[in-house]
């Protein structure tokens, strides 16, 4: 895929620009796939070769102004796009055979959805045409006759049960389990290692038999220390180990 960055095109209708960036009127879209197709059309790119990174960024920007009733559907698509973006950005080994394009599933869904939209357009036109024909307006009163037997079947009744049940609002309880991360301890451990060495390997700061909590604590500590300029993180080449080095301008205490 091409990762050549072009300046973002000025979004045209149904997008509108305001001072805070651009705002999408999501009412104009019938769902995340519709919005995605719109962005692809704006970019004039082939569905079969989607520039995922750029489209994912635009999608995230577009849903920024989302009304909350549809949020879940759009956010789910956003997370898919971000995941695809990550998969596309991961370097590939030269010797890798038969690499499956992670975008294939999205492409299939977009094509299927595009076909659905085409049918919907056809149906809409047919309904529009037929709306020019009016049926009989006046209906004669029913003749005085014994009422016909009611019709009731199990499928109708069960459909009604489902409608009732889905209409009931259940309070949804989430229990968040707090996992204690020891970022301070990890920070101390990393600084202690860097006291002794100018540079070290990621594994050296973890200690022996690290738990997932240790790994996460160390990762956050490393990122925080890098952000504060106390150390720098480097990966010399794809797939090589990460090198953690003390900021050369800061002498070891």
């Amino acid at each position: 895929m091409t990762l050549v960055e072009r300046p973002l095109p000025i979004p045209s209708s149904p997008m509108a620009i305001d001072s805070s960036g651009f705002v999408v009127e999501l009412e104009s879209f019938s769902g995340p796939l519709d919005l995605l197709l719109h962005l692809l059309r704006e970019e004039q790119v082939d569905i079969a070769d989607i520039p995922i990174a750029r489209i994912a960024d635009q999608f995230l920007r577009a849903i920024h102004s989302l009304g909350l009733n549809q949020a879940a559907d759009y956010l789910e698509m956003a997370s898919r796009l971000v995941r695809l973006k990550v998969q596309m950005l991961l370097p590939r080994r030269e010797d890798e055979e038969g690499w499956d394009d992670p975008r294939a599933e999205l492409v299939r869904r977009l094509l299927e959805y595009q076909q659905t939209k085409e049918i919907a357009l056809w149906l809409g036109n047919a309904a529009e045409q037929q709306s020019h024909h009016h049926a009989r307006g006046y209906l004669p009163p029913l003749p005085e006759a014994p009422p016909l037997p009611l019709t009731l079947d199990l499928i109708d009744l069960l459909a009604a049960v489902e409608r009732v049940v889905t209409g009931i609002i259940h309070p949804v309880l989430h229990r968040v389990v707090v996992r204690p991360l020891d970022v301070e301890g990890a920070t101390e451990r990393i600084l202690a290692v860097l006291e002794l060495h100018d540079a070290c390997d990621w594994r050296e700061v973890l200690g022996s038999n690290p738990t997932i909590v240790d790994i996460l604590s160390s990762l956050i500590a490393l990122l925080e220390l890098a952000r504060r300029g106390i150390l720098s993180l480097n990966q010399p080449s794809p797939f090589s180990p990460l090198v953690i080095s003390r900021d050369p301008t800061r002498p070891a205490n």
Partner: protein
Amino acid sequence: MTPLAQLIEAALFAADRPLTAEELHALEPDRSVDEMREAVFQLRDHYAFDQHGVELQELGGGYQIVTRAVHAAAIERAQITARAPRLTPAMLETLAVVAYRQPVGRAEVEEIRGVSASGVLRTLQERSLIEVVGRSEGLGRPLLYGTTPLFLELLGMPDIVNLPRADELAIALAPATPEPLDDHEAAAYVDADA
């Protein structure tokens, strides 16, 4: 038929009430009311001359196309105009609640469906699909409803126990708040990582 008679035929057909000559005039404001009236008579004569199954009647100062009386008996016999009345969604939903929760009071039906239920309950009662089966012990001793033998008959079921059990339905009717992870499981989950 002249174009004006065609237009009048279409309008009288689509209208749900007799139309006066003035109302018909709105169809073609360029023509006079008299011209419209003349075209109406042309349509009437056409129906009579060609022996149509319908005729044009003057009713309450307006005009209307009606079926000729001679066909009324055959149409009624074939019951073509009547549809077997189907239950509305509101009736079905109320019936669903009563079937699965009986004996059940109005308040509970309203709480589950989120709308007032007195009208629908009365209609269902009039149609003999539900009946009063007792009174609750609660405040004001409200009436309790249950389904009738006719209800089972319409569903072709020998007994109420033949209804699919609630736990066989996609989502169980029973009060179903999703069980949160209990403390024991949560603890086990954390331990597994350690």
